[in-house]
């Protein structure tokens, strides 16, 4: 039984030592200003989680943009003779019910999955950040109005709201890849922006109190200039972290919607759509489900890891 005093004290000292060493290790180029961002970058560069996550993400992006580099098989080609054939040397992930190559489908599906995640995340952050900064900076009735509207959307249970919106869209029989993707992306963004707004708002409220903002106002700077030049860069960090993690979450949301049958569908075949198609055959041809589900989990994982790493790097409390 270790002595609790020394153990606890030891913990504190060890951590203190870590920090001291880290600070000493940071090489500073002479004369170069050290900002939050460059510090964060230096920190990130050294984290294995960040490196792995970024590498995988870059790989996924390449697969999304250039799927033909990774497979020469046409993902749409059906051949019932190959229905449900399990993985083999010719087809690493086997074939699905219609005799399509699962590996090729997964590769081409990357594009749609990532597109939904990225677009939804970007849109949510843009809307949320815009309203959040306005609410935070102007305060008063502007803040009251925006916060109330945010609460209205926030009060709507997310999955429910998404199902209602998307089933109406489905009834309208929207066709074509981009309209379908836009519908899904918009419904996610419409339901998620309050969170981004709140984060941005609290950051803006805190930043507003800073001296440099007061100085800028005293100098007679217009609100727009203050917002974009002074507030925005300093409030970006928490929203960025949220955006990265949200990206992963939204990819999962899209898959859930497709599983329920109201998300994407042909011709925008994402991994969620593949999982949905495979659900009745799990017992006889599990490879149809496992590979897209595996890729899905992996993708969400790396985005969440990335967001985690970025948050730890940017959080001044952990420095």
């Amino acid at each position, binding site marked *: 039984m270790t002595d*609790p*005093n020394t153990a*606890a*004290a030891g*913990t*504190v000292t*060890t*951590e203190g030592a870590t920090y001291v060493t880290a600070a000493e290790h940071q090489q500073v180029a002479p004369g170069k200003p050290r900002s939050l961002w460059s510090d964060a970058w230096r920190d990130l560069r050294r984290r294995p989680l960040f490196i792995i996550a970024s590498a995988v993400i870059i790989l996924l992006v390449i697969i999304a943009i250039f799927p033909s580099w990774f497979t020469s098989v046409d993902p749409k080609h059906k051949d019932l003779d190959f229905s449900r054939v399990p993985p083999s040397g010719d087809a690493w992930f086997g074939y699905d019910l219609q005799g399509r190559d699962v590996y090729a489908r997964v590769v081409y599906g990357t594009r749609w999955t990532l597109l939904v995640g990225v677009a939804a995340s970007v849109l949510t952050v843009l809307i949320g950040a815009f309203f959040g900064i306005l609410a935070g900076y102007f305060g008063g009735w502007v803040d009251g109005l925006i916060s*109330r*509207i945010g*609460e*209205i*959307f926030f*009060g*709507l*249970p*997310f*999955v*429910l*709201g998404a*199902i*209602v*919106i998307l*089933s*109406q869209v489905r*009834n*309208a029989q929207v066709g074509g890849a981009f309209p379908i993707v836009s519908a899904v992306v918009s419904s996610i963004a419409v339901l998620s922006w309050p969170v981004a707004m709140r984060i941005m708002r609290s950051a803006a409220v805190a930043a507003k109190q800073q001296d440099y903002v007061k100085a800028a106002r005293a100098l007679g700077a217009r609100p727009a200039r203050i917002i974009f030049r002074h507030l925005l860069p300093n409030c970006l960090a928490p929203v960025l972290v949220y955006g990265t993690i949200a990206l*992963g979450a939204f990819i*999962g949301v899209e*898959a*859930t919607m497709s*599983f*329920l049958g109201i998300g994407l569908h042909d011709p925008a075949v994402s991994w969620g759509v593949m*999982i949905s198609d495979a*659900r009745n055959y*799990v*017992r006889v041809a599990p490879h149809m*489900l496992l590979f897209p*589900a595996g890729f*899905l*989990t*992996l993708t*969400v*994982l790396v985005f*969440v*890891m990335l967001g*985690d790493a970025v948050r730890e790097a940017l959080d001044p*409390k952990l420095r």
Partner: protein
Amino acid sequence: MGRYVLRRLLQLVPVFIGTTFLIFVLVWAVPGDPFTGLCGDRPCPPQFVAAMTEKYNLNDNVIVQYLKYMGALLTGDFGQTYSEQPVGELIALAAPVSLRLAVVAVAIEAIIGVTAGILTGLRGRGFLDNLVLVSTLFLIALPTFVTGFVIQIVLGFQWEILTPTVSSEARWSELIIPGFVLGSLSMAYVSRLTRTSIAENKRADYMRTALAKGQPKHRIVGVHLLRNSAIPVITFLGTDIGNLMGGAIVTEGIFGIHGVGKLVYDGIIDKQGTIVVGVVVLLVIVFLVVNLLIDLMYAVLDPRIRYD
């Protein structure tokens, strides 16, 4: 405190109206035939359409419809489904089941999540810490429906270890597996939240004081550390009960649980607008009330917080 509560309650009203109006519009004001599917494969005869339109006020503009609906709501009348069953009854049957499921989920996520969080928060970096970190990341990444679906198929159908569905009585014991699935995502958040909270508070001044005073470890951790670290965790767990009631649609569907999630999902698919709006109204009320209660409890737990 009283004034604060009053102010919050007053703020609730516009939000309540806004959210319910939003969902009302989404359900009823969207173009399309609301009676598809009621008449089997053929289109409904015009007299039928006329009678139903009259009954559900569909000829009025949407604001009037909404006001009529809310008026009825205030007297406790949630309206009727197309088969003339009172929606209030349906909700009254389904809500307790969902509540039980949410409670089970929160209990599981609290027990496992907090324990994991405490262990790793106290220990700091190490094998266990990394293990928990990675597994929580994994749980966050795995979509709920994949977890639930695979568990049901593999354990329920293929290996026949569990009964794949929940009976209509939804006994507590049957809800453990669905509760686990439902809470798996939140479990990850709870453990990380606990871990962070403990890690932060571990370095606080009062901890060093307690240590210097020679307090036994279990007292330091149990009395000082936990109580102060608990606040964000309890906040999260409290709001989670509300969230899980509304967000259990997928889990309830997979395991055949007759809760509000399944009720509203079926309502959306069958285009029974009254069910959808009724359930959402209930969920919004739950959400707003729970949030208020959590905020109040916050003040109780943390004496530094004062509401005027």
